[in-house]
């Protein structure tokens, strides 16, 4: 297999990756796009294997074991646990890249250890290690593992800085003294693993998607750096695509939360001082029953549902589908208002609602539906909290000040489904719950919606 043929195949693989991403620009072509991406990966792997002598047994064993584990995870996962899974896979990718860089330092010849090669190796080891440990911590936080919650200690920023500096120094040593590269590499990896843990552990659970997108972007850039060393076009192109994707997603999320990236990463989201007067604020809260809600819905002509993280926790999406079908039959127009950061990752709500077979044409983006929310008879807020909190508009000192929200409070009547009056991710009380036109329907999201469905069927 000549090099040019291989490289042409790599070019084909790159084009397949690009076409794959292009497919993702529309739900109709997205499945095909993803398959094209997978085909690109297949082509890249096959042409890497062709014409070389490998330790075949181990290689195939690795592929089979990894493939089987991947399939199991991908098939078993609940759609509501998607953020965790992406974090996990991201961590695996980081781990692989730190191991590859380590192996390279062992088998690379003297002549191959040029300065650019060593710089790229150090970079991919460093980024890989931070990605690995950081993503695993993110996974744990998203799984709400208790021991990872709210870990903060004094001097944390200082410790981070010291670790980061040590990593960079070790990387420099590695490049300057290639003959002792192995030692400095693995010490650097150890420190970087620690750095990844420390960096992520004090970031709030709901900010994990930002962290993951950012780490993913960095792994893309590390792959591109490796591509320069190996003079390999598919690594460069795939790496840049991933890098661009991660950066753009990070920006979208930060913009939707009206917070800067440093603010997300270095945790300026304080538990707000406003919590203490929550009692006063909630004095006028009115609660309601499924039967009352059913009556309201029955007489409505336009209903808007605002789903949030609570819908994911309660796995209420199928119950919601039943509600929608029922209302459809009665001629009530039902739409969904999707906030860009509702849930725990961008597009989270869309995936859940798609799982429940709800047509994506019904899902409206925040900016499209806000102007017409005052024409909604009933707005059902299902497990959402921060994304409908009017404080973002009114109180410039609030931690979510300036974050664009869905104007649920403008609807004729607002029904809020959640288990209690406790706050959402941002930790601040929500005056919407006490608004004159708001009714609280307490309970688990799924049970509450099923209750309303039952009441509607009986009416």
């Amino acid at each position, binding site marked *: 297999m000549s090099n040019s043929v291989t490289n042409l195949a790599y070019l084909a693989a790159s084009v397949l990756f690009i076409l794959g991403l292009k497919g*993702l620009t529309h*739900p109709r072509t*997205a499945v095909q796009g*993803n398959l094209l*991406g*997978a085909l*690109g*990966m297949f082509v*890249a792997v096959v042409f*890497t*294997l062709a014409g070389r002598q490998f*330790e075949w047994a181990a*290689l195939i064993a*690795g592929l089979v*074991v*990894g*493939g089987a584990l991947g*399939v199991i*995870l*991908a098939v078993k996962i609940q759609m509501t646990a998607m953020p965790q*899974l*992406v974090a996990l*896979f991201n961590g*695996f*990718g980081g781990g*692989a890249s730190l*191991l*590859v860089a380590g*192996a*390279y330092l062992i*088998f690379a010849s003297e002549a*191959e250890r040029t300065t*650019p090669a060593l710089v790229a190796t150090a970079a991919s080891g460093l980024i890989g290690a931070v990605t690995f440990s950081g993503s695993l911590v993110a996974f744990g936080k998203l799984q709400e593992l208790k021991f990872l919650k709210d870990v903060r200690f004094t001097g944390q920023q200082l410790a981070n800085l010291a670790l980061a500096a040590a990593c960079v120094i070790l990387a420099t040593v590695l490049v300057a003294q290639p003959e002792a590269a192995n030692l400095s590499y693995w010490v650097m990896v150890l420190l970087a693993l620690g750095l990844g843990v420390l960096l992520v552990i004090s970031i709030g659970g709901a900010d994990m998607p930002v962290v993951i997108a950012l780490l*993913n972007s960095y*792994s893309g850039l590390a792959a*591109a750096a*490796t591509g320069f060393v190996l*003079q390999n*076009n598919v*690594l*460069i*192109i795939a*790496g*840049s*695509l*991933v*890098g661009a*994707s991660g950066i*753009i997603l990070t920006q*979208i999320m930060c913009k939707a939360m009206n917070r800067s990236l440093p603010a997300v990463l270095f945790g300026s989201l304080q538990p707000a001082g406003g919590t203490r007067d929550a009692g006063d604020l909630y004095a006028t809260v009115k609660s309601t029953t499924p039967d009352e809600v059913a009556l309201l819905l029955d007489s409505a002509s336009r209903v808007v549902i605002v789903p949030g993280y609570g819908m994911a926790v309660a796995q209420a999406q199928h119950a919601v589908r039943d509600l929608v079908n029922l209302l459809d039959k009665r001629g009530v127009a039902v739409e969904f208002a*999707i906030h860009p950061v509702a849930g725990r*990752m*961008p*597009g989270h709500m*869309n*995936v859940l609602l*798609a799982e429940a077979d*709800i047509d*994506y044409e019904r*899902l409206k983006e925040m900016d499209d539906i806000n102007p017409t929310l005052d024409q909604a008879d009933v707005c059902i807020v299902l497990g959402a909290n921060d994304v409908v909190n009017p404080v973002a508009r009114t109180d410039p000192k609030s931690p979510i000040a300036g974050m664009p929200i869905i104007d649920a409070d403008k609807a004729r009547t607002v029904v809020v489904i959640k288990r209690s009056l406790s706050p959402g991710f941002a930790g601040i009380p929500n005056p919407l719950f006490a608004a004159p036109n708001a009714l609280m329907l307490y309970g688990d999201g799924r049970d509450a919606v099923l209750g309303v469905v039952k009441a509607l069927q009986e009416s």
Partner: protein
Amino acid sequence: MPDVPLSPLLPEAQRLLPEAQRAAAQAAETGAAAGGLDSGTLVLLLTIFALAVFVGFEIITKIPPTLHTPLMSGSNAISGITLMGALLALDVDHTGLAKALGFLAIVLATMNVVGGFLVTHRMLGMFQRKK
């Protein structure tokens, strides 16, 4: 590498060419060219990088919010391209340690790739059933 061929130094260059080409061809055949990264090739690779960033930027900003979760898992799967590097570590001529690291790397990277594409496929299938 890329070069404007109309240089005034051409005659001298021409004299040197056959020898250089022979040597370079030999080197390339045996894989030696990979040892170093000459500056001409570096510029071409930088060009590829710059263009790929543009392509990525243009396409990804067109992806609708509905598909942002599949985008995240799908691009995560693509980042498993490190698998290529992992495979190369299992070359027969390498030491046992390198092979062991390579094996682990293959397992992790394959999980990332296979799992990533598959779970994206599952998610997207849900979007497609509609309509």
